[in-house]
């Protein structure tokens, strides 16, 4: 349960949510993403109450931990389907380029991906989606050093066109990337 949360994120900001396990970082991300309706209080996104956004919902990019993909589809199929359903279809060449950029092989089903590869695929999706509000749940876990560099680049690029909120346990990573650190505490 979340209590006494007040958070305003300005365009261009990268906000890192820190705190122990179970404190509600993931829940807060889901509340911001409009996937959980708060019992009290209000969430405003892009200047509007959360319940009034419909078209703007497509501007939100959420990378869960672990990222969600259809296991029986290949990486490219997941990306093309996801973008088509979000009404942002992109050319196959763009998808291939994004896959190459994050170093993923073509044609392999996601079921055969490691957790690090799934994270990379999520990065590729974010690059193609170009969200105005990017929400990341423990994005740095399972990534090798190359993947981490790519992640930092994607986060900075997303922040230049919008804002980023990420939940992490890694203070070093948060200190390196975030423009603001928010420490969440368990309710007494």
């Amino acid at each position, binding site marked *: 349960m979340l209590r006494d949360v007040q958070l305003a994120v300005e365009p261009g900001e990268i906000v890192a949510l820190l705190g122990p396990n179970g404190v509600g970082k993931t829940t807060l991300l889901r509340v911001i993403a*409009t996937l959980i309706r708060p019992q009290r209080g209000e969430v405003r996104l892009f200047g509007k109450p959360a319940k009034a956004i419909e078209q703007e919902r497509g501007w939100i990019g959420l990378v869960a931990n672990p990222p969600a993909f259809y296991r029986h*589809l290949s990486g490219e199929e997941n990306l093309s*389907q996801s973008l088509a359903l979000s009404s942002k279809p992109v050319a196959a060449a763009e998808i291939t380029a994004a896959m190459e950029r994050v170093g993923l092989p073509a044609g392999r089903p996601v079921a055969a991906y490691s957790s690090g590869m799934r994270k990379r695929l999520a990065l590729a999706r974010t690059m193609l989606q170009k969200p105005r509000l990017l929400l990341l749940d423990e994005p740095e876990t399972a990534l090798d050093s190359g993947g981490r560099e790519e992640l930092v680049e994607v986060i900075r690029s997303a922040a230049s066109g919008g804002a980023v909120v990420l939940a992490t346990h890694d203070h070093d990573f948060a200190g390196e990337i975030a423009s603001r650190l928010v420490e969440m505490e368990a309710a007494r």
Partner: protein
Amino acid sequence: MRAWVLALRDLRLEMRGRAGLLSAFSFIAVVLFIMGIAFGPEEANLRRAGPGVLWVALAFAGSMLASRAWAIEVENETLDELLLTPGSREWIYVGKLLFLWLLMLVMGAFLLVLVAAWFYLPLSSWPQLFVTLVLGATGYTVVAAFYAGLTVRLRARDVLLYLLVFPLILPVVLAAVKATLGIVDPVADFAEVVSWWKLLGVFDVVYATLCVLLFPAVIEG
């Protein structure tokens, strides 16, 4: 358009995973085998039982497929992604409905052939049987896709789905069985069959409208 993309994607996933279809077809085979033994071996008994067996088997197998249509999202944890797509959310329901409807028609046609062979159901009136199948399957899938979506986040969703769907689809099963009986009975009045078709048509339109209107509110959670 997005609803078609979703339906086709689900079909592709089902063809690759085959979990739902295999279970449904195995279930149908077992039901027909047991019912065939229970009502047999006299031809008159089997012929009389045929329409009922057809629709009961289709209804139960349909529930398995309805549950499967949404289980794809639960297993892959992708429901959030669907919910984060821009615009109103009716299309998610319509996409799942189309997926389920297509599977039900394929399964219904397969079942019709099996029942015809086993229960002496004459296939000479196949156009009328097909109309009944389309109307009945539509009414069934409209309700089942809605309630399967409503219960998708619940742990006991499979049990709840049967409890919620079956009382509501009773008129569909009844009308479809009566229409099928009228079609296969050479002395029956065809006007009676048409009146059952009308009932199915009204049910389909009313429930489809209600479900499309209510779905965005119920899936929000």
